[in-house]
């Protein structure tokens, strides 16, 4: 399907070889075709069309942002994160900016129904002087919205080819591919010429010159020049130009409210919105909490890994290195690198993380997630976060480690700290949640409410205190609400698989390190010493049986181990509540602790870690003293 691009378009903006941090290797002589567009414009459908089967997915250095790259004929096609403009306001923009700066050709996918928003980026790309073609997507929805678009006029005004498409119905994809050789520079704003000319002599390429003029401090620093302060003027002019283009090419045939828009309105209506939210959350719980966490994990962890893998690997290693030796314990013992760690990673974590990322992709692609963020914004404001923090919090119930990594999407350091602390302290991960549920079910109604009440209160108090104590301000919510759309299963799966892969790649080494640490402690007798050291606190302060100390240490290795250790003990209902509160607030597993240190640095991680110990034993003890 790949066609050879013989009509090589000369790029007039040479000298972009020093974009430096770009990690993606493109063979000599091939062109970089870069896909650019706003979020939710169907860009991935285009990428999938161009890329065929083999796609190289890599993390952009220093970020969790995944970049997909594929070969297309002798050229390379690179996807970029959805952005509303080229600058450096967040990680997504920084990554997209660098890839765009290195592009030989840009395919700009725009949403025909939201031209006013999308053309802003298009005109910016044109002002950058990049050879461009525009894919005018969602043409199938234009009529439904009572619109009419003059595609030829749009192409004339922009000065670049505009191809109408309906990517979801596979319409226009081949035409976009066929138009690639026609990519060309569009009509640039004459007002910018003089300014650009000056800057051009200093930074060497027009795309970079424009970005510097618009005040990008990163790119300016790269060239040792001071950033321009014309952003507002340029932006306002660009906005006026876009509005002018839109007023010429779009005509309102009828202002009708579509069914989608009606549903969109209902979702945000406080009376209907909350029950809808409850139904959606229940559905997600059934998918992730029941189907995946219980049924699928039962098979992958219990039957496959513990039933086949562990006996198999023990059978191979045992004759060479006995399990009784130190090395044997480390390799195939209770916390063995080859036994428990592998089982945990592949049998438990992999299906769970995949399930949670699927749920997230479903909510993203349907357009529900931004509405959910809007709905809960006020509640999260109270603990110093904005609606966007709903993503790490939801993911936290899956795996705290995974959620801690996604706190990167939050706007300020302050928000990242608050969200991380809440995750590490008060959100039980799914592995733990399963065991907690079983233990709670044994003791019945009022105790369950007591436990939930305590955890929620702790969460609210921690958030409020941190929000008051930490300096600075949290970023306000300002998000675009895309139209509600039915998610495409192939897109959901692709997205979830990509993210799961990135997560597993990042977290796996830390799980091995964690298991290794505990195994070494076991071999050297430190584990026993540790357990004995905790005993006075366990029996005296928490009023629990002595063996509960073991559960707390186990909780370090795997949070559910901690709770599972309580299974075998005969505890009174009150003792159960006390021990569960302590276990929930107690340090998260060693892998998430490692990620905590990596993400937040020593200065924040140590207080968060110590804080969780003080909080868990402090609150657990107070409860015990009051209630038992």
């Amino acid at each position: 399907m790949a066609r050879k691009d013989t009509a090589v378009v000369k790029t007039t903006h040479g000298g972009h070889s020093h974009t430096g941090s770009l990690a993606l290797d493109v063979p000599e002589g091939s062109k970089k075709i870069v896909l650019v567009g706003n979020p939710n414009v169907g860009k991935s459908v285009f990428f999938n069309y161009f890329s065929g089967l083999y796609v190289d997915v890599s993390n952009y250095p220093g970020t969790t942002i995944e970049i997909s790259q594929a070969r297309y004929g002798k050229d390379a096609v690179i996807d970029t994160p959805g952005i509303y403009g080229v600058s450096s306001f967040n990680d997504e923009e920084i990554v997209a900016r660098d890839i765009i700066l290195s592009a030989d050709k840009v395919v700009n996918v725009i949403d025909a129904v939201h031209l006013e928003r999308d053309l802003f980026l298009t005109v910016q790309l044109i002002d950058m002087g990049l050879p461009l073609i525009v894919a005018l997507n969602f043409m199938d929805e234009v009529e439904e919205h009572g619109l009419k678009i003059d595609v030829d006029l749009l192409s004339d005004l922009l000065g670049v080819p505009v191809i109408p498409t309906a990517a979801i119905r596979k319409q226009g994809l081949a035409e976009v591919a066929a138009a690639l050789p026609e990519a060309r520079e569009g009509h640039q704003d004459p007002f910018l010429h003089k300014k650009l000319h000056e800057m051009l002599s200093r930074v060497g390429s027009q795309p970079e010159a424009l970005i510097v003029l618009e005040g990008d401090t990163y790119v300016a620093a790269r060239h040792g020049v001071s950033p321009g302060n014309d952003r507002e003027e340029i932006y306002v002019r660009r906005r006026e130009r876009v509005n002018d283009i839109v007023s010429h090419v779009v005509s309102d045939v009828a202002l009708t409210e579509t069914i989608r828009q009606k549903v969109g309105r209902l979702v945000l209506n406080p009376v209907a919105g909350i029950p809808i939210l409850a139904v959606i959350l229940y559905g997600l719980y059934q998918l992730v909490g029941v189907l995946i966490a219980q049924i699928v994990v039962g098979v992958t962890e219990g039957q496959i890994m513990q039933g086949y893998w562990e006996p198999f690997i023990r059978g191979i290693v045992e004759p060479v290195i006995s399990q009784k030796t130190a090395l044997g314990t480390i390799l195939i013992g209770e916390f063995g690198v080859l036994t428990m760690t592998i089982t945990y990673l592949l049998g438990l974590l992999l299906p769970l993380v995949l399930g949670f990322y699927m749920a997230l992709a479903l909510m993203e692609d349907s357009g529900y997630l931004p509405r959910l963020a809007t709905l809960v914004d006020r509640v999260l404001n109270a603990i110093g976060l904005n609606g966007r923090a709903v993503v790490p919090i939801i993911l936290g119930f899956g795996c705290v480690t995974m959620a801690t990594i996604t706190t990167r999407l939050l706007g300020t350091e302050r928000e990242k700290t608050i969200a991380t602390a809440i995750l590490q302290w008060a959100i039980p991960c799914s592995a733990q949640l399963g065991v907690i549920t079983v233990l709670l079910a044994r003791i019945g109604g009022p105790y369950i409410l007591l436990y939930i009440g305590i955890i929620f209160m702790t969460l609210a108090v921690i958030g409020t205190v941190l929000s008051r104590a930490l300096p600075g301000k949290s970023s306000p919510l300002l998000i675009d609400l895309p139209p509600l759309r039915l998610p495409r299963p192939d897109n959901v799966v692709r997205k979830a698989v990509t993210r799961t892969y990135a997560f597993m790649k990042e977290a796996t080494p830390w799980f091995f390190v964690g298991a290794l640490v505990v195994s070494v402690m076991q071999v050297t007798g430190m584990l026993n010493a540790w357990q004995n050291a905790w005993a006075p606190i366990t029996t005296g302060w928490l009023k629990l049986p002595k063996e509960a100390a073991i559960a707390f240490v186990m909780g370090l290795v795997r949070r559910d181990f901690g709770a599972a250790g309580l299974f075998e003990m005969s505890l009174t209902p009150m003792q159960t509540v006390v021990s569960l509160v302590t276990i929930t607030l107690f340090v998260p597993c060693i892998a998430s602790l490692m990620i905590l240190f990596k993400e937040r640095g020593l200065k924040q991680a140590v207080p968060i870690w110590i804080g969780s110990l003080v909080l868990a034993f402090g609150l657990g003890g107070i409860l015990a003293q009051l209630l038992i």
Partner: protein
Amino acid sequence: MCLDQIKAGEEVVIKEILDNAAKTQFIRFGIGEGSTVVCHSKIPFGPVILKKNRQEIAVGRELARTITVERSGYGKKRHRRG
């Protein structure tokens, strides 16, 4: 008047956006100082949802308090009726 005081269905002109980062983002979304927007809905104590043509934007309540607007009438729908 500030943006947090508008009611669902009301149409206003944006006069001033104090927060610079927010101003930039608003311009990208298609809304600048001088734009006319309609209040799509309001979450109680929460964000204000604005609508301009087919574009919907959620603005946190705190941010809405820092945006000055001027009443310009009611949305097209109501206008027709009354």
